[in-house]
């Protein structure tokens, strides 16, 4: 019967489109007379339009993808969405064109934003949003561009309303913490900053967003891709040219996923506008984001949350059954989904998709290893779905909908609290009850001027940092009866066990004692900071709950070396062929990562493809790290950013001695143990040339150079070397020196990276995992079908063309990983996390010495 009806609808569509309305009137009459209830969707649209205004702004929409409506074999060729339309007209928008409005409740007061979203066809279009038809509806021919814009707006509105309802719920729920004198992260002043949406204050200026509405482009010229662009802000949904009638917009779960990236961006930045009234809000000049180039854990968390939002919306435990599924690329969101075909994956504690074991797991091709944010993100999406199901089971099963709405609201609240703290660029993390915290003591991400660097590089959002903050918030808002937890039967033990099932119990304490970023002995509860709060105590993880989450010492990671047993092992890979490096630079640019290349003294034109570092080259470096432990290491990060590892001997010239941080650079080679080497400076100040001298600094570039004078060999600064060795290089002949015609000074030039430097913006590398007793290459690259490195593995290094061949360099890279036992906690201080300031030093890291000689 259904098939017959769809056939009739199709027939009528063709009739309407090709023969015109008059020629279709006859069959329409016949069909309606014999089976009136079967013809609701679009064919009788003219007859159902009411003159009382009740159908104004309405249309027929597809509520699900063709996979749900027509089964797994439908499409992707000849997709005809007219077969899947709702039987009733639904409201698209009350506005007269395809724009939508938003509203959010702040306790009992509602804030409305008109025109907060728009639906357009493609970014190239200069047309305004499509207006209503003459009959005041948005009914357009199925499969037409206008039809997709209507449906796009419908689903975008559904997703946005759900998000803002849940954020309003979160705002109200966390607000009660003020009465309990417990700090929270979602700020009271959110209603003033308007950062609950993309609206911000863009009508006044465009520092925050380019437009004050989110635009959905339904038919982007984007081959095989969909994206969320925070600058727009916009969502772009593409298609596939080989299937002309197939578009991502046909699968609502893809819209929810992309909107999921949008709301993740919002939640990360909830605290980045501060003020007690709308007129006094000040915005941080940057915004936090989740994810870097290629593979990393922040990007994986972003994908996991976006997949989870699809589950929030449609309750189904698989993402993109149609848009990706027709190409065998759909993703499961829970272990219950039958896309998981390998034995052992199920919803038991043993069967969970655990970290780091399943980081490279592709349910559609489980034979291959795939290092990608979408695959690794499955661990997060599965955890969030499992958490939701646990909350349903423990507390909300008796709700009319089985607890889905309430459980997902609590999970979204936990996400909003977690992300707003982690992404706080104002570096407070909490407020003084309902007012912003004053003063210059900070509690997250070091301080406001360095917070961007901290939350994206020096202390980035990894699986460890994310799961630790989630656990803290679960304990605070759900489990703990002392803080009137909303679901106390989901106890701290149960929460820890669930995290452990996923291998995510990667921390020893909840880091909830509220100490400051630069001094572990200063707390937000101090009388001069926020005296209303009692001093919190540090909550420890119950070690009995740690069964699957294995922590490994940083001492067990090192650069691989060639041995008799492993003669093919390589310490690091040098990529110096012109085409690969140019392609990588373009890849960075077209993903939005601009890197300030040096001019005149280094360029890819010098690249000679001899897999060594030669004068003038721009090369990619991939350290090949070896895991000497008997467990897998996950989330390995290599940092080539400046850090506090030198002792400045002469403030005027900035000449320094390297600190003795290991047994590799010894005192006889010039290493210093005293002075500033005795502690880490918690203030991050890069070494930068002042007008007449050096500015005082606490962080030096990673690369030093070997000075050989007679029998004495010492590691010295590059600036000292360029003068000592008769190079007489002027500042303008140094790397990173940048001037224009009328300027002859560059005040953010660092003379101590004159000869060799890692490029800012490409000075971090990330590796998904390294198996026990293997190198990264042996664990991931070699066994994968592609046999390739990904963009996230590469550090970019420039070599000055004036460096004499034979010059030796040592670069002190810092390495850590997410399941590290001694990279994050201070064993001498009750396993409290290191302060942010300590991430300016070596203590939380294993220092890897990258030694090389310049070749001709």
């Amino acid at each position, binding site marked *: 019967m259904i098939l017959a009806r769809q056939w009739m609808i199709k027939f009528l569509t063709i009739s309407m489109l090709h023969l015109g309305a008059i020629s279709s009137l006859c069959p329409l009459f016949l069909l309606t007379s014999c089976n009136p209830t079967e013809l609701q969707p679009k064919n009788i649209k003219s007859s159902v339009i009411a003159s009382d205004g009740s159908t104004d702004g309405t249309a027929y929409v597809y509520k699900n993808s063709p996979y749900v409506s027509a089964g797994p074999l439908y499409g992707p060729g000849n997709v005809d969405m007219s077969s899947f339309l709702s039987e009733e007209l639904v409201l698209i928008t009350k506005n007269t064109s395809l724009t939508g409005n938003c509203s959010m409740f702040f306790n009992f007061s509602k804030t409305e934003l008109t025109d907060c979203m728009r639906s357009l066809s493609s970014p190239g279009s200069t047309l305004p949003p499509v207006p209503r038809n003459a009959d005041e509806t948005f009914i357009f021919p199925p499969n037409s561009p206008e039809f997709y814009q209507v449906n796009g707006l419908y689903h975008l509105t559904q997703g946005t309303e759900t998000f803002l309802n849940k954020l309003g719920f979160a705002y109200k729920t966390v607000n009660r913490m003020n009465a309990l004198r417990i700090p929270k992260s979602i700020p009271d002043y959110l209603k003033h900053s308007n950062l609950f949406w993309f609206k911000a204050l863009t009508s006044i200026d465009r*520092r925050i967003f*380019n437009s004050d509405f989110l635009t959905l482009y339904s038919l982007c*010229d984007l081959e*095989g*891709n*969909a*994206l969320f662009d*925070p*600058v*727009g802000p916009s969502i772009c949904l593409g298609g596939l040219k080989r299937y002309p009638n197939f578009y991502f917009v046909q699968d609502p779960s893809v819209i929810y996923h992309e909107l999921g990236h949008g709301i993740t961006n919002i939640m990360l930045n909830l605290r980045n506008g501060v003020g007690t009234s709308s007129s006094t809000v000040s915005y941080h*000049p*940057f915004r936090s984001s989740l994810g870097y180039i*290629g593979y990393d854990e922040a990007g994986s968390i972003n994908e996991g949350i976006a997949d989870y939002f699809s589950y929030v919306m449609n309750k189904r435990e698989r993402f993109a059954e149609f848009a*990706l599924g027709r*190409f065998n*690329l759909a993703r499961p969101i829970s272990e219950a989904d039958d896309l998981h075909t390998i034995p052992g994956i199920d919803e038991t504690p043993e069967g969970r998709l655990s970290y780091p074991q399943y980081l490279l797991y592709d349910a559609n091709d489980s034979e291959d290893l795939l290092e990608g944010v*979408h695959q690794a993100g499955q661990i997060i999406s599965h955890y969030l779905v499992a958490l939701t199901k646990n909350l349903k089971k423990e507390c909300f099963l008796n709700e009319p909908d089985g607890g889905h709405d309430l459980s997902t609201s609590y999970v979204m609240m936990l996400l909003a609290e977690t992300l707003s703290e982690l992404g706080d660029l104002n570096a407070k993390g909490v407020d003084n009850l309902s007012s912003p915290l*004053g*003063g*210059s003591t900070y509690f997250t991400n070091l301080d406001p*001027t360095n917070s*961007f660097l901290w939350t994206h590089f020096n202390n980035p959002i990894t699986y460890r940092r994310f799961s630790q903050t989630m656990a803290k918030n679960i304990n605070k808002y759900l489990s703990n009866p002392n803080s009137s937890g909303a679901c106390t039967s989901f106890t701290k033990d149960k929460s820890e066990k669930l995290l452990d099932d996923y291998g995510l119990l990667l921390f020893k304490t909840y880091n909830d004692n509220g100490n400051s970023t630069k001094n572990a002995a200063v707390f937000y509860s101090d009388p001069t900071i926020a005296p209303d709060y009692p001093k919190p105590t540090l909550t420890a993880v119950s070690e009995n709950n740690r069964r699957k989450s294995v922590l490994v010492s940083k001492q067990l990671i090192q650069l691989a070396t060639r041995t008799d047993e492993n003669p*093919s092992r390589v310490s690091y*890979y040098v990529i110096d*062929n012109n085409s*690969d490096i140019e392609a*990588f630079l*373009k*890849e960075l*640019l*077209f*993903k*939005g*990562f*601009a*890197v*300030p290349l040096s001019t005149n003294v280094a360029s890819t034109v010098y690249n000679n493809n001899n897999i060594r570092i030669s004068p003038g080259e721009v090369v990619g470096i991939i350290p090949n790290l070896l895991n000497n432990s008997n467990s897998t290491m996950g989330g390995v990060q290599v940092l080539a950013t*400046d850090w506090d590892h030198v002792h400045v001997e002469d403030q005027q010239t900035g000449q320094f001695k390297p600190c003795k941080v290991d047994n590799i650079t010894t005192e006889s080679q010039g290493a210093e143990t005293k002075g500033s080497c005795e502690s880490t400076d918690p203030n*991050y*100040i*890069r070494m*930068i040339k*002042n*007008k*007449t001298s050096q500015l005082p600094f*606490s962080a030096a570039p990673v690369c030093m150079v070997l000075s050989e004078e007679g029998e004495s060999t010492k590691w010295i600064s590059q600036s000292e070397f360029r003068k000592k060795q008769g190079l007489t290089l002027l*500042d303008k002949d140094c790397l990173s020196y*940048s*001037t*224009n*015609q*009328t*300027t002859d*000074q*560059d005040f*953010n030039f660092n003379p101590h990276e004159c000869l060799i430097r890692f490029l800012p913006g490409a000075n971090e590398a990330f590796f998904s995992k390294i198996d026990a007793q293997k190198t990264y290459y042996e664990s991931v690259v*070699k066994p994968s079908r592609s046999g*390739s*490195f*990904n963009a996230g593995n590469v550090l970019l290094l420039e070599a000055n063309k004036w460096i004499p061949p034979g010059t030796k360099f040592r670069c002190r890279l810092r390495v850590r990983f997410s399941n590290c036992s001694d990279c994050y906690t201070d064993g001498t201080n009750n396993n409290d996390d290191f302060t942010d300031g300590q991430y300016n030093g070596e203590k939380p890291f294993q220092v890897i010495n990258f030694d090389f000689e310049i070749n001709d």
Partner: protein
Amino acid sequence: MTRKFLFFFSFVLLILIYYFTGNEDKKGKQQPPMVTKIQAKKMGHQINFEKLQLDGKKVIGLTPGKEKEQLKSLQVLNIPSPEWQEGLKKALETQGGNTIKELTIQNIDSFVWIHEGAPLFVESVIVKIKGNENQLVNFRVLVDAQTGKILRSWDQPVIDPIDPRSNFKIKVDPRYHTEN
């Protein structure tokens, strides 16, 4: 009168010659040649304590409670120049090579920012690039308002390809593993 004038003129000329020769010497010793000019400009910096502004530009990153005190002693290192835009364009073109079809730089904000310890006049801009294959990308950068040097980029798009295996890859050079 003319003699007096000539004497005075010669005296001024001698001072000027001495002055410029002295500066040449300094240049030879790699001292910053713009010092005098910079100082002169700095002397003229206009501070608005009420709005925490310097030369009409907001100063961001001052320590709460110590703003006025810090603003009084703030030594901004660079001097804004309209050529920052050309500098930025050149930098992006160097990175993108011949793949950039259209490049738009949209100025959003100008302010003083303490960048990794160094107070600088900066420009916050949106970069829009269209590639040869019509691929579009938007992102934001913070640049030195004097040179156009890129200090930071953010707000990158989140891209979801249909095929996760289509991501950018770098093949392992076979010279590293000849046994394979």
